[in-house]
C-alpha cells in the first residue's frame, strides 16, 4: 500500500458561491459533515450576478483547473433577478470557451439553495471527478504563473 501521493494530480478548483443560498448551502454541507474534496475553495460573492467572466478567466489564467459558480435557484434570488442575468452571462461565456477549444467540463453552474447541503457536497464531488478526469488546464493557463 505505497501509492505515491505526490504524483497524483490535485486539481485547483475555484467555487463562486452567492452569499444567500449557495454559501449557506456550503455551510450546511459543513455542519452536516458532508465531505467533499479539499481541492475546492470557495469565494463568497453577494450574488451570482457579481461573478464577472473576467474572474473566471483570471482563475484559469492563474492555473485553476475548474471553475464552478453556484447561486440561488432561478426565481429564488435574494436580489430578485441576479441569477437570471448570471445564467445568461455564464451560458454565453461557457459556450465561447467551448468554441475556442477549452473542454466544456471545466466550467459549471449549479443552483444550490441554503437547504441543499447534500446537493452542494454531491455537486462538488461530481465536479472534482470531472476535472480530475480532464486533467491539468493547459489551454488557458498563463505560463508565467506556472514558471514563476
Amino acid at each position, binding site marked *: 500500500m505505497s501509492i505515491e501521493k505526490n504524483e497524483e494530480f490535485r486539481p485547483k478548483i475555484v467555487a463562486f458561491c452567492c452569499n444567500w443560498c449557495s454559501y449557506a448551502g456550503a455551510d450546511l454541507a459543513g455542519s452536516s459533515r458532508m465531505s467533499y474534496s479539499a481541492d475546492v475553495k470557495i469565494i463568497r460573492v453577494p450574488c451570482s450576478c457579481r461573478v464577472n467572466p473576467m474572474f473566471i478567466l483570471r482563475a484559469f489564467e492563474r492555473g485553476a483547473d475548474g471553475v464552478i459558480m453556484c447561486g440561488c435557484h432561478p426565481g429564488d434570488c435574494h436580489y430578485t433577478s441576479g441569477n437570471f442575468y448570471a445564467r445568461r452571462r455564464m451560458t454565453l461565456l461557457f459556450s465561447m470557451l467551448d468554441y475556442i477549444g477549452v473542454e466544456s467540463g471545466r466550467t459549471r453552474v449549479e443552483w444550490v439553495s441554503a437547504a441543499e447541503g447534500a446537493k452542494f457536497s454531491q455537486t462538488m464531488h461530481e465536479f472534482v471527478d470531472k476535472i480530475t478526469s480532464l486533467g491539468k488546464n493547459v489551454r488557458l493557463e498563463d505560463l508565467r504563473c506556472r514558471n*514563476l
Partner: protein
Amino acid sequence: MYKIAKENLTALFQKIASEQELYLPVKTAGQTNFGVWTEDAQVDLDTLKTVKSPKDAFFPQSETLYTCIRDGKKLKIEPEALKDQNFVVFGMRGCDVKGVEVLDRVFLVDPLDTFYAARRDHGTIVALACHEPEETCFCKVFGVDAADPSAADVATWIIDGTLYWKALTEKGEALTETVKDLLEEDNSADEIVEKEKASVRDIVEKLPYMHLSLEGWNGDVLMEKFEDPLWDELYKPCLACGTCTFVCPTCQCYDIKDYDAGRNGVQRYRCWDSCMYSDFTMMAHGNNRKSQKERFRQRFMHKLVYYPANNEGMYSCVGCGRCVEKCPASLNIVKVIKAFQKQGGEQ
C-alpha cells in the same frame, strides 16, 4: 558574389538553423510575418512587406527585464539573461535595414540599452532586395535603394529562380563561411544583379509616392510645425489605435509594466507602446498629451522633426509604407506630408 538556386534555399535555411536561430518571413494563417524557421514553417519570400516589420528580432514586442520572486517576506530579484546566442535575420528589405539604423541611434547611444545591444551584437542581417516594389513604397524619399540593400551584413537578390548572395560586412563574411558548401561562386553574377537593380530602379521611378518632397521638414522647424493649425484637421479620422506604430520598423517607444503572477512574484517586462494610445506616457499627475490631436502630432513630429533634430537631420521614417497599407482610417505619413505641402503651395 555567390548564388544558390531558389529550390535549394530550404537546405540553406536548414544549414543556418542548425547552427543558430533563423528568423525569416513565414506565412501563418494567411499573413506573412518574421518568425523562427522550422522544418514545417511556410517560408514566404514573395510577399514584399511583412505585416509587422522585422524589428522584433532586435527589439521584441515584449521582453522580460527581470523577475521578483517572493520568499516569505523577502524578495529576490532575478535579472533576465541577455541574448548570448548568434542568430540570423533573413529577408529584410532595404527599408527595414535602414529602420535598424534608426533604432541603433536610439538604443546604442548612452545610456546603452543592453538588451538591444546584445541582440544587435549577435544578429546577422541578410537583406533581400525588392523585386516588385509597390505603390505604397516611398523608401527612395529617405535615401533607401530598394534595389540594393547595402546597409545589411549580406545582401541578396532573387532573380529568375536564383538567389544571389553578397557578403558586405565581417559578420556577413562569417555567415557566408558557414554556408559556403551550399553556395556557388558566380563571376557573371554582378552583371545580372546590376541589370536587376536598374530594372527595379525603373519601377521605383514610376511609383506615385517615390517623389514625395520633404521640403520644409527638418530639425529646425519645431515651433513652426508644432503650432500649425493644420493638425487640428489632420488628426480627426485617427482612431487612436496602435497599428501604425506596431507595424512601423522605426517606432521605438516602449512601456515598462509589471505582471503579477499571483503569489509567486512579479515579472517586470517591457513592451512596445504607441504614442497614439491615450495612456501613452501617462503619469501620476495625468497625461501630458491630453488630446488625440496632440498624440497624432507627436508621431509625425517625432519622425520628421524631433528625430532629425537629434540625429544630424536623419528622419526616423524609412518609407516602407506599412502604415499606408494598414491604417484603418487610411491616414498615414504621406498624407500628412502632402497636406503640409498643399498648404505651403496655397500660401
